[in-house]
């Protein structure tokens, strides 16, 4: 069963480019969409996962921001 999760990433701390990249990278495990300009995000999990999707996603975005010298 597909599970829908919502997440808000504060736009003052998270970068839209990194979020978009993370959405692409998570494509195979979840359908993720940015809902609004405040970075409200909806995650539709395709398969059951061992790790919590929402938290893994936000960590991944932070990691991308650091690796790509956005921060």
């Amino acid at each position, binding site marked *: 069963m597909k599970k829908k999760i919502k997440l808000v990433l*504060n736009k003052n*701390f*998270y970068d839209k480019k990194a979020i978009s990249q993370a959405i692409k990278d998570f494509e195979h495990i979840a359908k993720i969409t940015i809902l609004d300009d405040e970075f409200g995000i909806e995650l539709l999990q395709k398969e059951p996962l061992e790790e919590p999707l929402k938290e*893994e996603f*936000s960590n991944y975005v*932070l*990691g991308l921001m*650091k690796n790509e010298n956005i*921060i």
Partner: protein
Amino acid sequence: MDKKLEVRDGSVVLKVNPEFYPLDIIYSAAYVFLDKAYVLLDGDLKKEILVKLQPKQKQDLEKLGGEFLNELINYADYKHRAAQTKTIREYLLQRALFTNDPSIIPDDDEEVDYNEILNELEEDDEELDDPEGIAVPWEEKYGQKDEKKD
């Protein structure tokens, strides 16, 4: 004094003053914690930044929060020292590059300063003590003997 560390719902929330710890320091500390905790940043960029840490494995939450605060101090100190040693690092890099290509030294007022530093470094080299006579170039020590053999 407000409590800066709050444990709730299996996670610990830290309230960080951005005047003491700018955002880049918080990002650096957060990056270190990505392996062991889920990190979520929130709050007000100018007043109070909230760092929520949710450990990936069971862990003492107050200890986790304390470790994060230590990491903040660590990076704040690193940033401070990096700023202090910026000039000398630039000089050292300039010196290293100058060794290979003297033409990269700019022809402006700065050149005088670099030359002074280079001269000082060369003087330091000359003043090296060598009581055992070790610092003799190979050519000087053995070069003439080889010529005689020929």
